[in-house]
């Protein structure tokens, strides 16, 4: 689906990337722990998170994340917004909690970038 569909489904506000809403997305990953995002998230996925600092943008950049969806109505700091603009990473914010956000997207066809981790070490 398009990022514009994600915006509709989540009744989200676009904070950065109004011009990028025709971006195509198929998968997502949700976590507040950036090391887990780095371990498991795939390029081109949505990142659902409640963390709003600049490291979320750095992490998204490292992984070529398509867009960041801030959940629970979180608003990013001005530094985070500036960095997202610089690195051209869209940020949307939704009032839905993480569970609802994931559920609503899943129902409409977005799937996890993986279903289960491979082994006990958590290695992807």
């Amino acid at each position: 689906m398009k990022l514009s569909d994600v915006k509709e489904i989540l009744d989200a506000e676009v904070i950065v990337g109004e011009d990028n809403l025709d971006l195509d997305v198929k998968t997502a990953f949700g976590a507040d722990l950036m090391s887990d995002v780095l371990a498991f998230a795939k390029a081109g996925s949505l990142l659902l998170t409640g963390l709003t600092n600049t490291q979320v943008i750095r992490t998204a950049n490292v992984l070529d994340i398509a867009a960041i969806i801030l959940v629970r109505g979180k608003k990013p700091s001005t530094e985070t917004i500036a960095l997202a603009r610089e690195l051209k990473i869209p940020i949307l914010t939704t009032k839905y909690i993480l569970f609802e956000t994931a559920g609503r997207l899943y129902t409409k066809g977005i799937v996890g970038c993986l279903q289960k981790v491979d082994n006990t070490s958590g290695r992807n």
Partner: protein
Amino acid sequence: MAETNQNLYSGTFNIEGGNFNSAGIVSTGIKSTLKKLGIPSDLVRKAAIVSYEAEINVVSYAKKGVMTLTVHPGVVCIEVTDEGPGIPNIDLAMQEGYSTADQRIREMGFGAGMGLCNIRNYSDAFQIESEVGKGTRLKMTITTP
């Protein structure tokens, strides 16, 4: 094989300890350098993850550090040397979930004892040396499969 030893890029970057605002700048730069060199995207991604986690570690624990990027055809090498407290027990530090991180590091979305594991898992070769009171040195090599 002269061709495979061809040095495509060498660069050294300083990392400032304790400055969480600038954490990630070096690895973001490394990623864009590798992209510009036309390195395959899988290698770029691994190198970016590895350098980012290593940079976060330097910012989190050390006074300062230096990251060196060396690129040969099909091989990306990243070395990180820091002036930090050192790691008393490397086996313990390499255990997933083991962490000495403070609240500040955790608030940034790190410090859950995953960093070194991520670095090892995304590297094709990984070396770690540490001396308590002096610092830690990491060497990561990522190669084309």
